[in-house]
């Protein structure tokens, strides 16, 4: 009988607090990850939206090509019109 009481005491005073402590730690860790992951998701979504303007690079590419072609034409004319330095 005495051993049973000792077992009950151990269950209530040792096992139960240890179980609660461990589970609470796991829960706190999981809850701590949630805001970080949500921030990552928000940042990834915002980054994806920022890259929507990437398509404009094609326009920039085209404009740069035309500009360089115009500059080349202009430079060719200048090369004919102006004397060389030496």
């Amino acid at each position, binding site marked *: *009988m005495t051993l*049973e*009481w000792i*077992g*009950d005491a151990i*269950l*209530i005073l040792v*096992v*139960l607090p240890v*179980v*609660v402590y461990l*589970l*609470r730690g*796991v*829960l706190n860790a*999981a*809850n701590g*990850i*949630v805001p970080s*992951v*949500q921030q*990552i*998701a*928000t*940042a*990834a*979504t*915002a*980054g*994806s939206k920022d*890259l*929507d303007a*990437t398509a404009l*690079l*094609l326009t*920039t*590419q085209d404009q*740069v*090509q035309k*500009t*360089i072609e115009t*500059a*080349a034409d202009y*430079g060719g004319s*200048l*090369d004919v019109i*102006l*004397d*060389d*330095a*030496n």
Partner: protein
Amino acid sequence: MPAAGVVMIVAVVLIVLALVYYLVSTIVALQRITDALDKAITGVVGIIEKSAPVDEVVTSINTNLDAGVSLLEGLLVKKAGLSDAVGLVDGLYPGAAAEGFRDFPESKETKAPRISEVYTKGTLTLARLGREAPIAAASPNGPALRNPAYGSHAARILYPEVRQTRPQSMPRSPIIGTDSPVQYVPSESPGVRKRMPVAAGVAGTPEPEATEGGVVKSGLAFLRRLKNDDR
């Protein structure tokens, strides 16, 4: 049942309740993490897809810009000479001479003429590019192609022959004023005079000219001469 057994059952039930509560809470938290990770993965996939062609496009843009830089640097050095080119760039962008031209590594050691302290940017541009401007007489890279003292010939030849080559053959400009030797009657319509000018003191009372169809005849004669000249 002995009291000790009841207490043990109660203790076990408490432990199980604690397990259930914390494990369920952990499961809920992990589900929220999973949802957020799904959103993050979607965003990252979007980033990867949208940034895929960037490398190719930016490489193409850089290639074109490199060609443009080479073209402009080469043209500037060819036309102005390396020293003047460095001086011109340094005049427009102070301190740029230290970096030199990309395609001309020796330009880093070239001492830039301090031309920007004397002339404005526009004058510099004309002087360096053309060396036709009178200001180019002060060019550090050789004599000007155009004499600064008599450099107006190119502009003068744009005007009629007599006016530029034999200006002494041109009639003098009329002397105007109330006491001028030739008095002009103010005209009421452009190109038509009421009478021809006469020297002061010679003319009497001016007679009104005859008109034809409301136009003074001398004006009509002038217009006819002009018309014949055009033919």
